[in-house]
């Protein structure tokens, strides 16, 4: 039989591939050779030369679903990217990928993507040509002067970041607002002051014990995959790591804790000081490097007092503290719920101080070294910039703003008055992929290519063992030709300003290649030629960067004494979650349909409360409640979980979009809107976890899209061995770990 494939055998193949899971159609070299494929099987006649019909090829790139910058592999077949997986060469992702990264393809193929530039005329956005849009842009940017122009972005890094900075310079402006709801800005500040580094390397894998104050490092954190991988090592080490989670709302990480302690919201600082007290005064660790005022502060918190304030049992505190000294090196972490307090800085400092006392610095907290390309380093977002931006807008200090990679209209609390203030901004440009709230409020919308169609580099803020630049390359042709990559748009903007300087680059690809080629030999290491280096970079998807070794010294800064808010009501915890994250993934059906890890709710918003608290208020599980703060109120269903402190009510982020496409629009509510505008007095970051609310029952229980469908089933194993649990001693004996 010749290589030619006659119609019958072709049909046979089709029939087989149709025949369910037992067979796998075209991936069978045994039934379809490439020759046959090209001639008969492929739907289009002349495939691109890099397309091997019927065979999936993996290309390396970088994930931008969150700021972590995981290296990914994308499976490309017949010119379409089908599946994303972690890139083993990337130290950040270690060949793994979280649910958000997996769902990246759905953002890429999303039916609600913006396909053409749009300009606001007569109140509504109407499609225009790129030329018109760019002409408009050039005119407006030409008109604006200095600081009346601003960029508003999420976390940006790599060469895009560099270009963006250059554009700001070209515009003579210094206003770059970088906004992320899920951020560790306060920790960065504390680290900067205590360690001299904002983003030291955390080595969970080296720790024998982790005490986490609400740090959801495996969930909605700065680098979930990296820390999950480290967690796995931490657990499987010779001496199994011990995880103690202290928080007011059980997070994904808390779900895996050996000991989960509920603490009264806002009293973490007190607990930290109490533990410090035990360490210094009882266990007699050295108090070197601790300022006297802090020392006296510590002394004033004896265990009984601490137990009373925090609601954590005294013996528990003592035991945990004791273990911290026994299981050295340990690691104490502070998370969003700690940072996001009116005293966020002080609290975080108090917690980081424990690392200092326990001598973890340098062991489980390492220096990130000196990154050779400061201009490429991540400009990390926070909420302080959001506040500042709102102020500036209100004060009519801004004429033209370009928005990208952030959705302030959705994420800003009403109390900031941003929505109204937006009107004060004369010309708002949105470089965006989806019709989200901010984009809908813009005057000019530039359709952006998805990260799977675009060139770029990412420099993760939280670098893993080995620092690297993550390379991002297109995995397929643009879905619609009208979209432009972010880098290309930046380049165009710069060409408008500095033709002479950037005219040489035909497009961002050219610029990037040039930039790579220009890299020092230290980075290129043994690459023979520029082409080889370039190809190697594209193949591996990472450019390893030697940052040199550096050891870390810590000093304790003095911080304010904790003030405990005992006013009536409950503390609202607007908790982000792996999945919808800060709401940016609400338009990805896979993530909408993936149940929340703790409460198992899908496709909806809900409030989490402790059953006892609810009982006092006469609220039943799945009942309809009204959560009101000074700023406003939201009505939603309640899910009673014991993984809550009695004084807290949690409303996960992500839902409540007024725009953002068919999957996100009109689902649930957005807790961010009812937050107070209170900020951390030191860093100016929004105190997102300090809003006091009251909860009122407004309706009877009703169905909610909970996996267990509200029957109460699925909560308990009813004595059946589905998940067995054994004490660690037994495992030590049997497995010697």
């Amino acid at each position, binding site marked *: 039989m010749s290589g030619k494939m006659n119609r019958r055998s072709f049909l046979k193949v089709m029939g087989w*591939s149709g*025949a*369910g899971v*037992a067979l*796998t*159609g075209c991936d*069978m*070299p*045994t039934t379809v050779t490439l020759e046959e494929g090209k001639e008969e099987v492929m739907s289009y006649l002349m495939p691109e030369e890099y397309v091997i019909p019927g065979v999936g090829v993996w290309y390396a790139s970088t994930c931008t679903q969150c700021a972590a910058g995981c290296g990914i592999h994308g499976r490309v*077949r017949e010119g*379409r990217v*089908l*599946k*994303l997986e*972690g890139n083993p060469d990337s130290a950040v992702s270690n060949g793994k*990928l979280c*649910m958000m990264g*997996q*769902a990246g393809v759905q953002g*890429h193929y*999303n*039916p609600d993507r913006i396909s053409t530039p749009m300009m606001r005329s007569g109140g509504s956005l109407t499609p225009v040509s790129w030329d018109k849009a760019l002409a408009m842009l050039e005119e407006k940017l030409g008109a604006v002067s200095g600081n009346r122009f601003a960029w508003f972005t999420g976390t940006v890094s790599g060469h895009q970041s560099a270009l963006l900075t250059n554009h700001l310079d070209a515009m003579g402006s210094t206003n770059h607002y970088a906004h992320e709801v899920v951020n560790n800005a306060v920790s960065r500040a504390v680290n900067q002051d205590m360690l001299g580094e904002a983003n030291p390397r955390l080595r969970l894998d080296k720790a024998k014990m982790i005490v986490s104050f609400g740090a959801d490092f*495996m*969930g909605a954190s700065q680098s979930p995959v990296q820390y*999950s*991988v480290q*967690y*796995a090592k931490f657990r*499987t080490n010779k001496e199994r790591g*011990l995880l103690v*989670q202290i928080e007011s709302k*059980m997070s*994904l990480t808390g779900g895996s804790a*050996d*000991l*989960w302690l509920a603490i009264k919201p806002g009293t973490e600082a007190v607990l930290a000081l109490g533990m410090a007290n035990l360490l210094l005064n009882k266990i007699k660790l050295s108090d070197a490097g601790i300022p006297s005022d802090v020392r006296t502060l510590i002394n004033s918190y004896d265990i009984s007092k601490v137990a009373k304030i925090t609601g954590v049992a005294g013996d528990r505190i003592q035991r*945990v503290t004791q273990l911290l000294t026994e299981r050295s090196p340990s690691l104490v972490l502070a998370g969003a719920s700690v940072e996001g307090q009116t005293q966020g800085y002080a609290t975080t400092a108090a917690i980081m101080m424990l690392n200092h006392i326990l001598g973890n610095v340098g062991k489980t907290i390492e220096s990130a070294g000196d990154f050779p390309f400061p201009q490429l380093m991540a400009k990390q977002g926070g909420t302080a910039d959001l506040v500042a931006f709102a102020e500036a807008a209100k004060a009519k200090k801004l004429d033209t703003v370009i928005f990208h990679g952030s959705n302030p209209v959705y994420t800003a609390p009403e109390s900031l008055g941003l929505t109204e203030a937006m009107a004060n901004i004369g010309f708002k440009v949105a470089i965006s992929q989806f019709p989200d709230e901010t984009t809908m409020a813009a005057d000019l919308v530039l359709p952006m290519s998805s990260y799977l169609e675009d060139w770029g580099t990412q420099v993760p803020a939280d670098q893993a063992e080995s620092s690297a630049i993550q390379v991002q390359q297109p995995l397929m042709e643009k879905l619609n030709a009208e979209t432009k990559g972010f880098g290309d748009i930046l380049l165009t903007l710069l060409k408008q300003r500095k033709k002479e300087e950037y005219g040489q680059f035909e497009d961002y690809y050219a610029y990037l290649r040039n930039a790579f080629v220009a890299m020092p030999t230290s980075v290129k290491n043994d690459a023979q030629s520029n082409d080889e280096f370039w190809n190697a970079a594209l193949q591996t998807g990472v450019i390893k960067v030697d940052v040199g070794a550096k050891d870390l010294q810590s000093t304790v800064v003095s911080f304010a004494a904790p003030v405990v808010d005992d006013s009536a009501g409950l503390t609202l915890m607007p908790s982000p979650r792996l*999945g919808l994250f800060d709401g940016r993934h609400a338009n990805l059906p*896979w993530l909408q349909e993936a*149940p929340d*890890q*703790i409460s198992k709710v899908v*496709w909806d918003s809900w409030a989490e409360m402790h059953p006892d608290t609810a009982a006092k208020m006469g609220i039943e599980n799945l009942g309809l409640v009204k959560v009101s703060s000074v700023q406003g109120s939201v009505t939603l269903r309640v899910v009673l979980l014991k993984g809550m402190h009695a004084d807290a009510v949690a409303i996960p982020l992500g839902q409540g979009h007024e725009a953002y496409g068919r999957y996100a629009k009109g689902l649930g509510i957005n807790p961010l809107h009812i937050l107070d505008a209170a900020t951390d007095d030191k860093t100016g970051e929004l105190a997102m976890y300090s809003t006091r609310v009251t909860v009122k029952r407004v309706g009877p229980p009703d*169905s*909610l*899209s909970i*996996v267990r*469908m509200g029957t109460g089933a*699925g*909560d*308990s*194993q009813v004595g059946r061995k*589905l*998940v*067995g649990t*054994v*004490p660690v001693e037994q*495992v030590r004996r*049997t*497995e010697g770990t």
Partner: protein
Amino acid sequence: MSLDNILNHWSDYRKGAEEGGHHEYEHRWAMAINLDLCTGCNACSTACYAENNLAVVGKEKFESGQAMHWMRIERYWDQQELEHPEQGASFLPMMCQQCGAATCEPVCPVAATYHTPDGLNAQVYNRCIGSRYCSNNCPFRVRYFNFYSYYESSWPEPMEQQLNPDITVRDKGVMEKCTFCVQRIRTVKDKAFMEDRSVKDGEVVTACAQACPTSAIVFGDTMDENSMVSKLWKKHQVERGIYQKTKYAKKDTDLRGYRIFEELNIDPSVMYLERVREDI
């Protein structure tokens, strides 16, 4: 002629699970899932959606229990008597256990679900008439039925371009379930066949195992003595075959390995390792 076929192979054809049944297995794919590492993060589940063309059913249908998540994460609260779950939650990744003596198989009226030489419990969509008996007889409740046609609602233009061409999109009236990513197995087997070698351990990785950030899921061939899975099964003294045999095989009952509902004698291919907690 099938008559002398019967006479010649009578004794073969009369073999039940106790004697290993009538199978010349090429592989016996299996898993070992370390529940101590599972953080319930949903990565596996989402990866499964991406790999296997699983339909997104939407709020209402999900609410009425018609979701299609082949790989679902179950979350249980132990220590319910306490005020707070002090040892966190118990997460259980639950997918088709590819039982050696699968209860779903003998009840299918049209032989749409059967046992492959790979030891997989295959579902032939084309043959299924949707009597749903298999799902009723599955103690794990991991078989999912296409109650509706989803190909319009779940993959609106251009979403359908993401669909994996290696497997079909199922239409209404058909039962479906986890296949241990049979398309991946198939690809690797064919590759090995072309290169005239046997499949190497770690060559086949299911989507869930691949994605799992904590590497809690290990996938492999229990017929390959040196495969990671075989070693783990051996280490925890979990054996293939039905309960009566394995019960006595397990010398040290403190070992963490166990198979869910093993007492039903269905010989699941997934071994779970118990969650570990330290009391402090």
